[in-house]
C-alpha cells in the first residue's frame, strides 16, 4: 500500500512561499485576514510543508499569529461543536 503513495508524492510540484513571491505582502499581527489563511479550521498554525512558506517567513508568521492570539484577535483553538 505504502510504496505507490510515496511515488505519487514525489511528483508533486514544490510550493512557493507567497511572501517571497509577492514582496509587497507584509506580515502584520493586526492583519487578521491574511493571517487566517495560515491556520487550520481548529485554529492551529499550518506547517510550512502544507502552506509552502519558506523558513524565514514561517518564523515571522508564527510570531505574528501568536501576537494576534495574545490580544484575542485570533483564537488559540476552535472547539468544534
Amino acid at each position, binding site marked *: 500500500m505504502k510504496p505507490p503513495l510515496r511515488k505519487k508524492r514525489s511528483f508533486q510540484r514544490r510550493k512557493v512561499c507567497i511572501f517571497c513571491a509577492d514582496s509587497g505582502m507584509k506580515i502584520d499581527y493586526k492583519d487578521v485576514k491574511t493571517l487566517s489563511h495560515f491556520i487550520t479550521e481548529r485554529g492551529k498554525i499550518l506547517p510550512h510543508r502544507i502552506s509552502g512558506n519558506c523558513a524565514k517567513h514561517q518564523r515571522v508568521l508564527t510570531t505574528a499569529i501568536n501576537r494576534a492570539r495574545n490580544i484575542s484577535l*485570533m483564537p488559540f483553538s476552535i472547539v468544534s461543536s
Partner: protein
Amino acid sequence: MRRYETIFIAHPELSEEDHAALEKKLRSTIAFMKGEVIKLEDWGAKKLSYEIRKNSRGRYFLLDYLAAPGLVRELERHLRLNDQVLKFQTVKVSDTLNPEAVRTLMEAGSAEILPKAPEVPPPSAEPKKEGLEKATAEGGEDK
C-alpha cells in the same frame, strides 16, 4: 527614542467619562515622560476570539507612540491599574529613531489622521472593518 504600539482592550460598555479619563491619563503620561503620540485609534467594540474576564466583546484601541524605554513600563502600569482595561499588548515597531525621522513621521502621521476623521461617522457594522484594514495598511507603509 523607539516607536512602540500598544493595543489595549477596554470593557465593551466603556462609558464616555471613563474613555475620556483613560485617554487623558495615557496622553498626559506620555507627555510627562517626553514621549510623543503618533496616533490613537479606536477600533470600536469587536468580538473577542476567547472570553476575557467573562466578556465576549471588547473595545479595541491602538496607541502608536514614540517613547524612551521607561515610559512603556509606566504606561502599562496605568493600564494594569485601570479595571476598565481587559488586556493590553505592547510591541516595539522600530528601534532608535533620530529626531528628524520623528518629525517627518509626525507630519506624515497628522496627514494620515486628517483624512481619516470624516470616515468615522458612517454607521453600520462595516466601517469598523474598514478602519482595521486601513490601520494595517498604514502600519505596513510606515515600516
